[in-house]
């Protein structure tokens, strides 16, 4: 990892935090984008609250998807669940053809408007990359390593916890990272069905033709997605630095 990239990331983080804490100080920057004296900074709610609400929604949903998807991934890679593997693969493939917006839209008739459809959509959509990566990670363990583990007398559980999961972990975490990023974006769209988040700002901008609002909502959402991605990547590098550099 280069120093320049680290500096860039920290600068982005600092910018995001400053903007969220004191949005008014950025008013002169956004003022040229507004017309007819419209407010340059979103004034119908607190940006920080909205951003935190969105992150909370995303993290809750992704955590739930991670638990379920990793569990399912483990299940279908055991001998007892192996007969479900081809089916679950196909389902994941089909699932990926459902656009996030469609998942969100379809959840509305089931549970009504508000936070719930967003959580359901994020949960469902978050399952796919994590499940897929869990399976490839567990399948990617070198057969010789598995054979050695069994041959030395590890029980199936010991093998799973001590060998297979640690080896699959980088891929699983990458899946979770992907889910997080997709979910930050989908959560913004969740505002259209009444979930609290920065989508509100973008949509307010679209409705009142206020580019400043759109840009604020968009930039903050984008920055959050990138920084979440980078933060997780940094944690992963710290955890797996020595072992898995090939």
């Amino acid at each position, binding site marked *: 990892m280069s120093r320049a990239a680290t500096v860039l990331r920290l600068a982005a983080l600092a910018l995001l935090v400053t903007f969220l804490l004191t949005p008014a100080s950025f008013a002169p920057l956004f003022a040229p984008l507004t017309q007819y004296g419209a407010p340059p900074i979103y004034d119908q709610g607190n940006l920080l609250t909205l951003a935190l609400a969105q992150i909370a929604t995303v993290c809750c949903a992704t955590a739930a998807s991670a638990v379920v998807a990793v569990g399912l991934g483990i299940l279908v890679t055991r001998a007892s669940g192996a007969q479900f593997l081809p089916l679950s693969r196909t389902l994941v493939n089909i699932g990926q053809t459902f656009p996030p917006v469609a998942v969100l839209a379809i959840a509305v008739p089931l549970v009504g408007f508000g936070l719930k459809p967003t959580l359901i959509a994020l949960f469902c959509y978050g399952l796919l990359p994590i499940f897929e990566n869990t399976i490839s990670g567990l399948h990617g363990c070198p057969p010789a390593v598995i054979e050695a583990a069994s041959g030395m007398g590890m029980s199936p559980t*010991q093998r799973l916890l001590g060998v297979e999961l640690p080896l699959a972990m980088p891929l699983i975490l990458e899946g979770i990272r992907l889910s997080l990023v997709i979910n930050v974006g989908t959560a913004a769209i969740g505002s259209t069905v009444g979930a609290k988040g920065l989508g509100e700002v973008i949509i307010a901008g679209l409705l009142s033709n206020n580019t400043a609002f759109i840009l604020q909502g968009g930039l903050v959402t984008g920055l959050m997605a990138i920084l979440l991605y980078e933060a997780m990547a940094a944690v992963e590098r710290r955890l797996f630095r020595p072992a898995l550099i090939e």
Partner: protein
Amino acid sequence: MISIDNLSKQYGSTTVVDRVSLDIERNSITVIVGTSGSGKSTLLRMINRLVEPSSGRVLIDGNDTAGEPAHLLRRRIGYAIQGNGLFPHRTVAENIATVPRLLGWDDTRLRARVLQLLTVFQLDPAEFAGKFPHQLSGGQQQRVGVARALAAEPAVLLMDEPFGALDPIIRAKAQDDLLDIQRRFATTIVLVTHDMDEAFRLGSRVAVMSRGRVLQYDRPAVLITRPADPFVSQMTGLADRAMRLLSLTTAGEAVIPGAAGGPVIAASASLRDALSELVWRGAESVAVVDADGAPLGRLTVAAILAHGRPG
């Protein structure tokens, strides 16, 4: 020690191992040799029950191995495989400590054992204990693999093509090391290979397998001089069987009394090497000395050649 009794394995309608019975001696290296698909690996894997037999029994020291949970059985039996199967996410020391940890050894004993093994396998603990497998050379990885298999002081060590991934020079060294290790720890080793030279070099007894059956199980010299089956003689090689036979006997074993001038050879060298030395030097006899250089006697061309024929 290990007695394999009428052991068979079927997958559906194919029989992979067909009613095999073998008695494996304690404190020796027994080699199972065969072409690919002969069932040799399956036979080996039935000893530690990585493959469950379809019928028949395996007894270790008189106890049926089917009588205890498979994973507990495997902790008592060392297991080393081709490509070594080291855990890429664990250090060399952690890899070696795997089975002792499973068995719940205390830290002091564990640390002492890891240090001992690293030293025995010529891996400087200060340098290698903390390294990860991908930072080692192929030969070093292979040694760690065997060290790991021996960590819990198993009485039996199973090896499945353990040197298959090594280049010839490192392989010869690894084979010599294995002979030393076997003597040092007095382990009973069962080794599977497709390489007849390796079988002859390592095995005190060799079982030749083909299509799931053991065709012959005997000392290497017997396999050469009295092959039980055309397939066995094909495997042992008709063209150079005399030379193979010579390579099974050491100069020390064949030495005859008397003094000789000219070339000198160590007692541990094979008769094949002694003959080669004689041919090269154009001499008629060679002096045999022990490890300290003290003369033991001599070898003549005629005396060597007498060992190269059946009888």
